[in-house]
C-alpha cells in the first residue's frame, strides 16, 4: 500500500478558474462584487434600487444566481442594463466555472461594474471564489441578529455588511447594536451600512461605497 500526499484544496479547480476571472476583471478595469445573503434578505431589491440610480449607458451588468426560474433576471433587465440569470438547477451556490460560462458572450471591455447576486444561502457561497474583488454580505432586520455568529465564515470573508430593511426596525425584535457587535466580533473593522430599499435610506452611502471601490479597482487595473 502506498500513500500519496496531495496537499491541495478540494476546490482547487474552482480556485484556478476564479483566479483566471480575477485577472480578466483587473485587465478590463472591472469591479466585480459578489452579493451574498439568506433567501429573502433583499438582494434583488437592492440591485433594483441600485440599477435605477445609474444613468443610461452606465457600464454595469448583473449576473444573478437561483436554483430555479429567471424571475430575478427579468426583474433586473427592466433597467436596460445587461442582466443574465444563472439557473443552477439544484446547486446552492454559484461557482467560478458557471460565472465564466455566463460571461463568455459578454464583451467585458464594455463594463466597469459587474454585480453577481449569489444563490440565497449564507453557507455554501462562502467556499466558492468567483474572482470577485469583494464579497458583500447582506442581512435583513427580519432575520436574527446572531447570524454573524452562526455563519462566521461568510462574515469573516466579506468586506461589507449591508443591514437591509432598516425601516422595519420598529416592528421587529432585531437588536441592531448586537448585530453590529457580533459582525465586528467575527470581522474586526468590518464596514457596515444600514439600508432600506423601501425608503431609500442608506442607498447614497451604498453607491458611494461602490464608487470608492471602483476607483480602487481602476488604480490597480
Amino acid at each position, binding site marked *: 500500500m502506498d500513500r500519496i500526499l496531495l496537499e491541495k484544496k*478540494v476546490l482547487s*479547480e474552482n480556485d484556478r478558474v476564479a483566479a483566471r476571472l480575477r485577472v480578466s476583471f483587473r485587465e478590463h478595469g472591472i469591479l466585480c462584487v459578489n452579493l451574498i445573503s439568506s433567501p429573502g434578505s433583499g438582494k434583488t431589491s437592492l440591485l433594483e434600487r441600485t440599477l435605477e440610480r445609474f444613468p443610461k449607458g452606465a457600464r454595469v451588468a448583473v449576473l444573478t444566481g437561483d436554483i430555479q426560474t429567471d424571475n430575478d433576471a427579468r426583474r433586473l433587465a427592466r433597467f436596460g442594463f445587461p442582466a443574465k440569470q444563472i439557473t443552477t438547477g439544484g446547486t446552492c451556490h454559484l461557482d467560478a466555472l458557471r460565472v465564466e460560462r455566463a460571461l463568455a458572450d459578454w464583451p467585458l471591455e464594455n463594463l466597469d461594474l459587474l454585480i453577481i447576486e449569489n444563490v440565497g444561502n449564507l453557507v455554501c457561497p462562502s467556499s466558492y471564489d468567483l474572482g470577485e474583488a469583494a464579497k458583500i454580505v447582506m442581512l435583513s432586520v427580519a432575520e436574527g441578529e446572531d447570524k454573524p455568529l452562526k455563519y462566521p465564515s461568510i462574515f469573516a470573508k466579506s468586506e461589507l455588511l449591508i443591514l437591509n430593511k432598516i425601516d422595519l426596525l420598529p416592528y421587529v425584535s432585531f437588536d441592531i447594536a448586537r448585530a453590529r457587535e457580533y459582525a465586528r466580533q467575527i470581522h474586526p473593522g468590518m464596514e457596515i451600512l444600514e439600508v432600506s430599499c423601501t425608503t431609500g435610506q442608506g442607498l447614497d452611502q451604498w453607491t458611494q461605497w461602490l464608487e470608492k471601490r471602483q476607483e480602487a479597482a481602476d488604480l490597480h487595473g
Partner: protein
Amino acid sequence: MHELSIASAILDAVRSEAEKRPGAHVTKVGVRIGAVSGVEPEALSFGFSALVQGTDLEPLALVIEHVPRRQRCPACDFTFEVTEDSLSCPRCASGETLLAGGEELDLAYLEVED
C-alpha cells in the same frame, strides 16, 4: 448543502490521480475539514458513499480529519483553538480576534494498492 459538489470534486481528484497510476486501485482518500468550512462531515460522507456506490471506484473509503477553528489575537499576538462559543482571547481577554484557521477544505492524501 453543497456537500455533494464537494464529494464530486474529491472524486475528480481521485480519478485524475488514478489515471497516473494504471493498474493501481485507490482504496482511501484523506481530507481535512475545518470547523468553519461550511461543510458538514456527515453529509459529506453520505454524499461521497452515494457517488462511489456502483462505480469502478468501489471500494473507496473517505477519511475525514476535523480541524478546529483557530483565532488570532492581534493585541497580544496569540493564536488559540476555539473550544466553546467565546472568541475572546484566553490570554488578554480582548474581544477582537481574527479567524486564523478552521476553513480548511483540503485533499490530504490517497492510499493506493498496486
